[in-house]
């Protein structure tokens, strides 16, 4: 009997992904109806749901979440479309290196960078505020980071802009110039070309990036947790956070709130799938042409804008993180016995946990990256090209881990590992963490590669098959080379996510296996941000190093446009 390998692969992928995402989700769902203290006798009821949705301030938290998300994603969308176009389709000087600057920004750990911004923009003692007042440019400090706009600003500077530039730029690069030229020759203006050609062709990517951005906004809490309370700004995710980390923890309402996010997001994910599938978006055809626009003298103005933006997003935070790692107390230059010291480096480097954590991090992050680069393209290909009836379901399932807040996903993973006999041996091991990180990064990785595959015209595959090439040969010689840049982007993202992921790692690590991010947490929790900055620098060097290595191998991680 002849076995259809593709069908077998599809069935395995559907079963594995289905189990790994639906089982923990069902555990969360049922646990949301268990009323009572965690770990003790509980009763079934709606108490958690009632408590969750009748809590004080929830209405304002929802409004804040929606307005902050709209502002952050709206600004980011407009800005990053322009930035990505400049990087991918113009003769902007040094564009490859400028793009890499956004990567470095993405590698930076959030908390030390946030403290750096507080140091600069605190409404009372912020360095920039003091300078502005001392220079006589204002009578009172003009900026207050503990505010609604402060939250939006820090989000844009820390992650939002960087991620979207990273995701949009390869898509712009894959846009066939002949389509744009044909539109122009047919009399379409710049706006018409943008609306009728560029946007439709990039629709799958735009939908994925916007949806991922919204999901990230709904679940992000680190920045809101610090900048929100002084301004009395509560958001939905901080309400979840408080239930999880209460003493004693109150998981039930947190699960109820999380499931509600999932329910609300289902139509959006479904809509994205429908819109993304509506018609062919292929732009990489046998006639593919990449031509860059000549900006003329304007390119230097654009270059200057990039330098300023990257200075704020990358150079400044890196400078403060490195400086902070050498300061006796971060942000204090008036320490009588000397403001600078090597002590924090000595403390971290001499800690026996450091080397172990470094080794574990390297192994776990590298394995996560490699496994993601092998597994995600296969699943993405099956979703886009297989034609099987369940591919829509498989596509939807890949979104599920992103549709539930990360704080709660960590707990669900813990239950998944402890309650599944097949997975239990991997609890607390490197393999367990690798699997957990892959699940957490699955939506971003698969969707990104999926949009890459959708941009490749089917005619290329058909030509190869017509020439006698086998399916495997066609994959190796046609599809893989074309999606390689995107796959490497996914690999680097997976590596970085594995080095930085805390909420999952803290619950699934053990005394024998833990990552640098978990080790860093020890210092963050005890307020030792200087030592945490040391580890931040180490993590930054690691991530940047990986990105450079990828580039050395010629795998265009956004550095070497086609």
């Amino acid at each position, binding site marked *: 009997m002849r076995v259809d390998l593709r069908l077998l692969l599809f069935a395995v992928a559907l079963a594995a992904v289905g189990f790994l995402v639906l089982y923990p989700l069902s555990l969360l769902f049922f646990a949301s109806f268990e009323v009572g203290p965690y770990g003790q006798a509980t009763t079934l009821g709606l108490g958690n749901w009632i408590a969750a949705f009748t809590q004080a301030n929830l209405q304002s938290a929802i409004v804040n979440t929606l307005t902050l998300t709209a502002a952050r994603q709206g600004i980011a969308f407009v800005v990053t479309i322009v930035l990505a176009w400049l990087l991918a389709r113009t003769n902007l000087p040094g564009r490859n290196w400028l793009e890499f600057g956004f990567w470095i920004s993405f590698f930076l750990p959030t908390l030390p960078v946030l403290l750096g911004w507080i140091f600069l923009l605190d409404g009372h003692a912020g360095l920039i505020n003091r300078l502005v007042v001392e220079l006589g440019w204002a009578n009172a400090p003009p900026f207050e980071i503990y505010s609604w706009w402060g939250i939006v600003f820090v989000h844009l500077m820390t992650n939002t802009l960087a991620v979207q530039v990273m995701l949009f730029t390869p898509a712009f690069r894959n846009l066939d110039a002949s389509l744009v030229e044909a539109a122009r020759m047919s009399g379409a203006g710049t706006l018409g070309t943008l609306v009728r050609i560029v946007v439709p062709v990039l629709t799958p990517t735009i939908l994925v990036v916007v949806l991922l951005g919204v999901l990230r906004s709904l679940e992000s809490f680190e920045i809101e947790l610090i900048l929100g309370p002084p301004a009395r700004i509560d958001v939905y995710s901080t309400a979840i956070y408080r239930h999880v980390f209460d003493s004693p923890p109150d998981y039930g309402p947190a699960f109820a709130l999380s499931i509600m996010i999932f329910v609300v997001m289902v139509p959006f994910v479904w809509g994205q799938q429908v819109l993304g599938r509506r018609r062919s978006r292929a732009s990489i055809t046998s006639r593919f042409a990449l031509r860059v626009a000549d900006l003329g003298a304007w390119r230097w103005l654009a270059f200057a804008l990039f330098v300023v933006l990257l200075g704020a997003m990358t150079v400044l935070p890196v400078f403060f993180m490195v400086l902070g790692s050498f300061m006796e107390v971060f942000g204090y230059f*008036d320490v009588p016995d000397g403001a600078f010291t090597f002590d924090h480096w000595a403390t971290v480097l001499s800690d026996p946990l450091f080397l172990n954590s470094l080794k574990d991090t390297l192994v776990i992050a590298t394995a996560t990256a490699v496994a993601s680069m092998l597994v995600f393209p296969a699943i993405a290909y099956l979703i886009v090209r297989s034609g099987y009836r369940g591919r829509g379901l498989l596509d939807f399932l890949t979104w599920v881990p992103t549709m539930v807040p990360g704080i709660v996903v960590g707990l669900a993973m813990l239950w998944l590992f402890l309650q599944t006999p097949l997975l239990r041996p991997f609890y607390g091991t490197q393999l367990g963490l690798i699997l957990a990180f892959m699940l957490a990064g699955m939506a971003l990785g698969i969707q990104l590669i999926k949009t890459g595959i959708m941009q490749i015209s089917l005619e290329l595959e058909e030509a190869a098959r017509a020439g006698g090439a086998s399916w495997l040969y066609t994959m190796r010689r046609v599809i893989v080379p074309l999606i390689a840049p995107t796959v490497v982007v996914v690999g680097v993202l997976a590596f970085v996510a594995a080095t930085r992921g805390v909420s999952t790692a803290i619950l699934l690590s053990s005394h024998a296996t833990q990552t640098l991010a978990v080790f860093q947490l020890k210092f963050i929790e005890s307020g030792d941000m200087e030592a945490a900055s040391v580890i931040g620098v180490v993590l930054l060097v690691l991530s940047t190093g990986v990105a450079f290595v990828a580039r050395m191998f010629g795998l265009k991680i956004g550095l070497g446009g086609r």
Partner: protein
Amino acid sequence: MRKPLGVIAVVGALLAANIAMPACAADVTPAQWDKIVAAAKAEGTVVISHFTDSGIDPILRLFEQKYGIKVEANPGRPDQVIPKILTEQKNGQFNWDVLLQPVNNVRLVLEPAGGLEPILPLLVLPEVADDANWYGGLTAKVPTKLVFYDGISNLLTGIDVNRDKLDRAQFNNWPDLIKPEWKKKFGIFYPGRPSNLTIALACYRPAFESDAKWEDYVRAFFAQEPLASPEFRIVADWLVQGRFDVTVGGEGSYLEGLKKKLKRNIEAPVGQNLCGFPPDGTGRSVSVPRNPPHPNATMVFVNWYLSKEAQEALVKSFWATGEASVSRRKDVGHPDPAFQKKVLEGFQEDWLQGKGMMTSSDEGLRLQLRVIALAKEAGY
């Protein structure tokens, strides 16, 4: 009813070492102790979950050097670690030997779920098991047989004042905070969850004749609209950088370090707070989770950790990192004797005389939760 498998394992180890298992703290002879140590060395490892104080690390290394038993230490916050341990236990995984964690989650989550072994039967070294060696005896009047409190922390009023800016006439204590001139003029730790702020306000309750009057004060406190942050470091920075001259609930090792390094005259007023002991939010408690995987190493570690040698080292190490706690052992001094005297006086005169309040007790927790509710009513 749960089976006390951990105790059975310890008993088994003791029987193997030819030692009778005590019902409560009891002495072993040097020869018996040597056999326990030999059995512990054969186990080779003790797995410890501890709070994120950096002061604990040197102590763990000291234990490794002394006994040649590897310490696998996992630092972590109790609100993350304790539910994880309980989840493991519920699924038949027993991975931990010793907890050196703040008491809130240990007592409120692990203890009622049956996740702890009785601690007193494990205390077998004569110098540890001797009731007379401890201020307040072995139990220190704490209503639990599962957690041992080895330290008394510096929980003062919870208020910190920049005395370079304000003298006592300008600001002295709690009543000043609700005066009109202090509206929006002080910073607090975020009151959304149990913390130093909620503890401090709960501990102020005995100063009032009724709950209602205390609640009036708490309402007036939040009506002052103090600025709140959930980061101790930020609250401390506000005080030191001059954004506010008074903060509440922001104390901790970071502020202590700032005071020392920057030589700032920051004072925590004492006198109207009856919550001297036992403090929550510090790592000064020892407990043993159910079914420790290395029962002999657990016993050796717990006894050594509560010995004079370890407690002296611990106090010094904590002091060096800004954590100002005092050992309950009578034979252990302190780098700052005046501070030790003050803390011990409060402990003996308040707590041991029944005047103090345990913030992890039902009463303490009730008051803290009330503070949180009142804060929410005020829009926090």
